[in-house]
């Protein structure tokens, strides 16, 4: 069938107002989001779903923290580091947060250079992001080790409610897994950018689909989300 000539459009364009216009825009021909690619839409929806997962984790943590009758360990003491003989509260976590936020910066720059098709800069910035992420996970491992040495276990700890250790390990562990997965994919995509796979639309090993620069941006969405979630975990776990 050849392109049929468009029939009258004016009537259908001027019909709506207010909410109806909103609904009409959304439900318009062929696609709902006119500027977003499929991959981006998929990532956004996945992140929405993931938001619900993190929300459920955090709400459950808040519930057990409020309903337990035993006192909750004091975060500014538990998460303190001995520096020069003096305990400095929350110092490690401050550094970790700083690193993760910085990694969002390098990621945003990588996306930008990706748009300009500057292959090497993009790849380098993604690797920098991955390095930040890896050091975040490393510090988290350090913090876990420290707490475990001090006797914190998922089923109990020396200072108060059992649920402290359980929710701490569960939630930071789940977030740490997200960061680790992110680091792995950052490295994979950085390698593809570096090799010029996206310029040549080389097909993926598993998917046999053409590679696109857009993957850098989709990766960025995920990475910023993981950072954003961290801010909530930080606030609810370490500052409450």
């Amino acid at each position: 069938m050849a392109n049929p000539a468009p029939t009258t459009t004016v009537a259908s364009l001027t019909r709506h107002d207010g909410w109806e216009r909103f609904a009409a825009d959304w439900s318009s021909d062929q696609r709902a989001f006119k500027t977003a690619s499929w991959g981006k839409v998929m990532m956004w929806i996945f992140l929405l779903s993931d938001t619900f997962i993190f929300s459920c984790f955090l709400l459950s943590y808040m519930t057990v923290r409020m309903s337990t009758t035993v006192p909750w360990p004091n975060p500014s003491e538990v998460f303190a580091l001995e520096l020069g003989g003096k305990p400095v509260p929350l110092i490690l976590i401050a550094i970790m947060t700083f690193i993760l936020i910085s990694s969002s910066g390098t990621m945003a720059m990588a996306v930008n250079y990706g748009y300009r098709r500057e292959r090497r800069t993009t790849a380098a910035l993604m690797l920098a992001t991955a390095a930040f992420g890896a050091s975040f996970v490393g510090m988290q491992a350090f913090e876990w080790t420290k707490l475990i040495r001090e006797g914190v276990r998922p089923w109990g700890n020396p200072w108060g409610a059992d649920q402290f250790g359980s929710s701490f390990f569960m939630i930071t562990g789940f977030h740490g897994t997200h960061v680790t997965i992110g680091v792995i994919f950052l490295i994979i995509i950085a390698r593809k950018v570096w090799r010029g796979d996206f310029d040549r639309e080389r097909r993926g090993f598993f998917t046999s689909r053409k590679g696109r620069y857009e993957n850098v941006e989709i990766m960025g969405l995920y990475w910023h989300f993981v950072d954003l979630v961290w801010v909530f975990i930080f606030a609810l776990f370490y500052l409450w």
Partner: protein
Amino acid sequence: MAEVVADTVGSIGPAEVAEVELYHATSWLTKYVFCQDAKVIAIQYSVTAMAIGLVALVLSWLMRLQLAFPGTFSLIQSENYYQFITMHGMIMVIYLLTALFLGGFGNYLIPLMLGARDMAFPYVNMLSYWVYLLAVLVLVASFFAPGGPTGAGWTLYPPQAILSGTPGHEWGIILMLASLILFIIGFTMGGLNYVVTVLQCRTRGMTLMRMPLTVWGIFTATVMALLAFPALFVGCVMMLLDRLLGTSFFMPSIVQLGQQLSYSGGSPILFQHLFWFFGHPEVYIVALPAFGIVSDLISTHARKNIFGYRMMVWAIVGIGALSFVVWAHHMYISGMDPYFGFFFATTTLIIAVPTAIKVYNWVLTLWRGNIHLTVPMLFALGFIVTFVNGGLTGLFLGNVVVDVPLSATLFVVAHFHMVMGVAPIFVVFGGIYHWYPKVTGRMLDETLGKIHFWVTFLGAYAIFFPMHYLGLLGVPRRYYELGATAFIPPSAASLNVFITVAALIVGAAQLVFLFNLIWSLSKGRAPGGNPWGATTLEWQTPQTPPGHGNWGKELPVVYRWAYDYSVPGTERDFVPQNQPASAPTA
């Protein structure tokens, strides 16, 4: 409300959407096994779901036999009864209905009905099926694990779910939780595909408001599932930690057989909230696709446009949204604050409004339609009747004061079987009879189909109608035998025998259906591409069954909504969606 939905006037813009990058299978393995074609994935999903559903059916026979003839079967001890109940409930709700509606019908119909070549991400779609299969295998493995499958009830309430008093506490519960987590991961991969495909990959002219209601139902259900499964996921993870690592998320201090367990300070109610924040939307995850499909069945087989299309769409979306704020109506007897109960009772009853709108619209669609009593139509009518029936008892149970004495009786069992067991299953059957000719190129046998329908329909009533009465008598749910009780008359036992006989007959009718499915594959009549004279795009494919990539060289272009049946002045009593307005027949 003056609505002009059946607009054949409207701009058909140029193609904005790139076509799906198809994977051209080269070997038998990539064509039929590790296949990326949504149509094949749909069949894989459906066959797996029906196979595991058969297990759940057999379990229901065993439970019914035990209830009718307590003490006769040495193989069915009380522990086994709990295991059967749990596996039956969980399989039916999740592994059969959810997988079949979304993975089966969704995969087959979304791309075809929208005029797309495939799902947006065929590779991820394929992974979705394999993870689902893994989830099913893990679930089945629990039957063979030491201690057997879990007997915690399909709601898996802690603390009992993981304590040693519950059968299957050794391996069963671990495998169940692991299987659910896998299911959710697999579903998410598929679900992202369905949502993106509906939002972004429609063919030219296919606005959202021209989509068949089937797609609307599946789409909304998928969005809900993506937002509801997270709560179950989190609940499963936390319970798994409680069971394996000895954390106390859901476990309070407990003394068991005189021994203080190591748990302390957790909140069992938290699990109930997480479970039902998933569990109630789950009811609609199963119901909304059924709503959508049944609308299309009724419209097609009554040769009449659907009544109030716009209302139908908004009712689907409204029900989907509302169902996230009613979950605690499953927890009236958990000792919650009465004001909470008041809030949740109100929201629950508000859902009745859009639901009633849908029922009225179905009935008004039938009103003075040219009703063909084909097998799909029979099942659609059966759906309306049972759904209304179950919905009415739902109104009882939604009110706190009525629910408190009825909850945990067979009244509840009767209610949910009517509304989310029998009713959606009818739509599954109706849908299979309707689309089988598209999937295989052959009709299912009509006579066998009618036998299947009548036995199943009357049988379902024979099974579940008396259960309401037993529930009102106070017969408790999840009891493996009644024993001698003062308040239950001996006649309840005879009624139980009657129900069991009916259940076995209904079960036998399903075997007729299975036979029909297999027999017709080679022996059925070959009716051509559009046997029902339907308007939607899947019936307009160049080949039947649709070939690789669904359409020929050109994608179809959509000029009208999906319900142009019996339009005055047209040659045939239906106008396909891809027929231009200017064509001579219009």
